[in-house]
């Protein structure tokens, strides 16, 4: 980490600063999406910058960069993401917002068949400097959380269907600090990168963020809490759940290490395998549903390449294979929490209730 900055920003503000700093540096960067500014074309009535995206991550950009570089779009994910692909092939560096990851069904071809494959199937002749930002995740049964009660089509964690696609980099920040650094790294990447931003973190998480521009490398996991006895592997908001569980476990004398995966594809196997080689135990914590999931992929890779270092079976803590329920009590039950992580660790050690 860069030397401690006293200044704290929210997760959304950190992303906003990342985009703003890069747009100042590079005139080919444009931002597109539904309501990325909001109130388009109403400047004559004094309305500018009405919305700024679900995490307010693009608020204020239009006043600095104007409507030519900050483009509100109609509701047309297939169309404007395709425009982003075409623009990235022809000299721009677009940042396209898909409001919620649940909406990728409306534009999946542009991600799966177009953006991710262009560089490869065209024999390397085109770069595709495209960033897709999208919000994901449940409120975890917390009624106070923004986006609360969003239900089965506005709360998902659909990164497994993205990480499955070769050629696409899939990034899930967990703090304001790494959100800024990963966003800048994604913008500077000459290939397509999709960033999944947790709604819960987006508006509630705050943390120290240096004012200067910096990158957090894509493709690197981070050990956020060193420990000796078990590795807890977290993704996005689940990293915070892992830290919460680790703090509780310490009281029982179990010293858990927490690895923040940060990039789902390409996955940093080395950091995870190295951690497991020391702790000899692994619990993977994932807010997505378990079948064909990132959690099980990580478990399979460690079983394949690190089996000899394991003293216990690998455990996964995930959402169940159900759609996301509306009622807060059911949503809380659906979303993995520290209690389930602690139970998994107890199962490994043969302790607890």
């Amino acid at each position, binding site marked *: 980490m860069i030397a401690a900055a006293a200044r704290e920003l929210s997760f959304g503000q950190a992303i906003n600063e990342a985009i703003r700093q890069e747009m100042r540096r590079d005139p080919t960067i444009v931002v597109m999406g539904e309501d990325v500014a909001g109130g388009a074309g109403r400047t004559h009535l004094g309305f500018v910058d009405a919305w700024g995206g679900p995490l307010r991550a693009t608020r204020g950009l239009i006043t600095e960069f104007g409507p030519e570089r900050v483009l509100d779009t109609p509701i047309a994910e*297939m169309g404007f993401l395709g425009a982003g692909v075409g623009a990235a092939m022809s000299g721009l560096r677009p940042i396209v917002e898909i409001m919620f990851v649940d909406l990728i069904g409306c534009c999946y071809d542009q991600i799966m068949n177009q953006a991710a494959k262009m560089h490869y199937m065209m024999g390397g002749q085109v770069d595709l400097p495209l960033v897709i930002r999208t919000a994901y995740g449940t409120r975890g049964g917390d009624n106070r959380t923004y986006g609360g009660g969003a239900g089965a089509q506005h709360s998902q964690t659909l990164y497994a269907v993205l990480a499955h696609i070769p050629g696409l980099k899939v990034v899930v920040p967990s703090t304001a600090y790494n959100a800024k650094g990963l966003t800048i790294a994604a913008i500077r990447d*000459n290939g397509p990168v999709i960033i999944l931003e947790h709604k819960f973190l987006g508006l509630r998480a705050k943390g120290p963020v240096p004012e200067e521009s910096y990158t957090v490398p894509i493709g690197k996991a981070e050990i956020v809490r060193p420990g000796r006895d078990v590795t807890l592997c977290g993704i996005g908001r689940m990293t915070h759940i892992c830290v919460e569980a680790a703090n509780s476990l310490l009281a029982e004398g179990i010293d858990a290490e927490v690895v923040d995966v940060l990039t789902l594809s390409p996955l940093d196997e080395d950091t995870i395998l190295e951690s497991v080689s020391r702790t000899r135990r692994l619990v993977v914590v994932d807010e997505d549903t378990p079948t064909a999931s990132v959690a099980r992929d990580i478990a399979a890779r460690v079983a394949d390449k690190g089996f000899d270092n394991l003293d216990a079976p690998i455990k996964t803590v995930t959402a169940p294979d159900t759609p996301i329920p509306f009622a807060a009590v059911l949503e809380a039950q659906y979303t993995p929490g520290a209690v389930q992580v602690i139970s998994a660790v107890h199962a490994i050690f043969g302790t607890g209730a």
Partner: protein
Amino acid sequence: MLQQSNGIGRLAQELPSREVLLWMYERMTLIREFEERLKWLVETGVPVGAVHYYTGQEACAVGVCAALEPSDWIASTHRGHGHCIAKGVEVQRMMAELYGKSTGSNRGKGGSMHITDVRVGMLGVNPIVGMGATHAVGAALSAKVRKTKQVAASFFGEGAAGIGALHEAMNLAAIWKLPVVFVCENNGYAQSTPVEYALSVPHIADRAAAYNMPGVTVDGQDVIAVWEAAVSAVERARAGQGPSLIECMTYRYYGHHQGDDTHRYRTKEEEEAARRRDCIRRFRENLLEQGAVRQEELDGIDAANRKKIDEAVAFAEASPLPQPADLFTDVYVAEPEGERK
């Protein structure tokens, strides 16, 4: 015949120059020669992968590309060989790509359905119907933001009129006044589904009104008619007045792809009637009737094209196959060291 061209609601003020007329003839016949040779290769068992012949539709690609500048962009469809050649992709590199050779336009990693050459403004053959239109919109947006005055032409078939991406692309181009020319090649069939079954209006051009853009239907077997319409649309685009839609009524002589039996869904009479309106033969006859060019010039072009395709096949056959390590290259864009720090 040249005077009878049914253009974009007006007769062209000027016909193309002699140089452009010869270029049109050369490109149309080169496409025909390429496709006929490819058909022969397929039928003699050369493994060139899945291909969709453009034969019959040559006037559409050539008429539009004759109205474009080399720096302009085009986005294409699965039936894209004609668009590639019209925009200037080298036939040697195309043929090598079909052979899956490392000298191909895409180093053997794309094949017929992905031929691309951004150096000549060819943004890609794209077999996911409708997607090319959205990419053309993106290239036009890029031209507008970067103030380059480039135009993007989007080729698509009448089958694409059924997919939502095309609607989204047209609406975006219209509201942002982007320099896009939408070119529908209405060849009557989406695979085996006839247009009159799948389209809610008589003509795709009728839909232009819904996007507040000009729309015209032209004879796609008449390269001058296509050219006239394209010149108007390109002028409008370059002047910042927004997109246009040109519907070219055309016909594909062969099946949807190399194995398709057309007689399961269209009559021999219909096919024969279409061939009587062959765009190349009509253009050649008209050029000679007008005295615009000499027969020896056209014969010379025909011979040169045969030689070009002979050479393209020889080049493809002699070229090396990709190496096993190539499977793993270009999955991600390599970051040039220090370039964007």
